[in-house]
């Protein structure tokens, strides 16, 4: 049984079916995109128990009983409006992954996470554009809309921190 966007559904799947294919091909939630299908692009980013993960490298079986949130369960969200306002997209294919990733990223930061560009990892730095670029590096944009994406996240991060889900430990 999968819980996707608060809706419990029961699927009968072969064990190798990825969460990505379960969402797209079985539940017809095609907002989550299949880019590289090998963990290199971030287009398939979804939230599992509030944490951002790659749906292409997650088996549907692995998230049985856990809360999956896709772009369909996110909106309307202030970050989506900010992406439009700041030209954070061109073709839009990476956008659902960018939005889900940014929501997870802000929750991680609110939880106190440092990054590799944080000079002192015992501290939690402000979400500067440099920190945002590093923390969002798992989401590629072939149109090169990165400047707009970073601006949209800068605009929205304070509001998103208020909305951030509590991060529960991943193992059930």
């Amino acid at each position, binding site marked *: 049984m999968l819980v996707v966007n608060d809706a419990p559904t029961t699927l009968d799947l072969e064990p190798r079916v990825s969460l990505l294919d379960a969402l797209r091909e079985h539940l017809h939630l095609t907002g989550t995109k299949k880019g590289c299908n090998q963990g290199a692009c971030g287009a398939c980013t979804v939230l599992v128990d509030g944490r*951002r993960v790659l749906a292409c490298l997650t088996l549907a079986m692995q998230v049985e009983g856990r809360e999956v949130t896709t772009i369909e369960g996110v909106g309307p969200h202030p970050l989506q409006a900010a992406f439009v306002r700041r030209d954070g997209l061109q073709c839009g294919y990476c956008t659902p992954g960018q939005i889900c990733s940014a929501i997870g990223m802000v929750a991680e930061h609110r939880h106190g996470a440092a990054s590799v560009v944080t000079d002192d990892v*015992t501290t939690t730095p402000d979400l500067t554009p440099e920190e945002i670029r590093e923390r969002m590096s798992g989401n590629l944009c072939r149109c090169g809309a990165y400047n707009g994406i970073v601006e949209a996240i800068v605009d929205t991060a304070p509001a998103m921190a208020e909305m951030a889900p509590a991060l529960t430990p991943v193992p059930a």
Partner: protein
Amino acid sequence: MRPVDYVRPLDVAEVLTLVAERPAARFLGGGTNLIDLIRQGVERPDTLVDTTALPLAGIDTALGGGLRIGATTRNSDLADDHLVRTRYPLLAQAVLAGASGQLRNMATVGGNLHQRTRCPYFVDRESPCNKREPGSGCGALEGIGRSTAVLGTSDHCIAVHPSDMAVALTALEAQVELTGPRGTRQVAMGDFHLAPGETPHLETVTQADELVTAVLLPPPSLGVARYRKVRDRASYAFALVSVAALLDVHDGQIRQARLGLGGVATTPWRAHAAELVLVGAAPTDEVFEAAAAAELAPAKSLPDNAFKVQLARRTIVATLRRLRADGSAS
């Protein structure tokens, strides 16, 4: 398609019974490497044993002042842990230097130790690869080898070990705890990964009926430490060269130095030769250069990866100089 079973046991004893009966079973942690390799046909398990419901996640202080890191702890939880950040910042930095936020949320510590090389000839089933198919040859030796290793290589394999975390664990002198039907044993990080030699398909000392259950860190050392990673782009890429370094200087003399290298070797590399030059000497640029030269003297390069020898030398020296500055500031 060959059928595959998926199981998610709740205790370690159940796991050990299961894998004893199924030698072609594979442990599944975060799946960030294994799922991709199954999709490519490189890994062909008959059973996937999901380890993430086992009671092995979490980080606790260990007897004697060290740390016990459960094997299914996620990489992001490891990097976020207060004790790791304050007492072993080198490890937090190394983990944060690897992969992306999404992948670190998935990947486990035990899985990271067992991840496979990203050598393109290993993943490409149409190329020969002694690691994938013993005896078939090595496509990388005469192929395009920019990412390949210059230390610890053999005539059979020059694939790089891809982990950042493991390089830091090597420098920190961590122990790996393995649990099997004969009980529990501990293996030093320096002995855990196997040089390719004539058997590049054998990568760790983990036996088919054993499970990594924890990584144990000794109490923190004196001095300052830092992880420096050099790659083709600023983030989300494997290392060309990485250096995990720890330096303790007292009264103008290096009391302790520990160095791990990533991106250049077939295993997470402990730079013993460099350490021998450093310990007891003054922390001068000349000594740092001599240490790097000693470590890299046995390097064997090919035209495509020869740049790594110079890049490793410069990265070792730059990291040590930075630590010298960090140490005198503190």
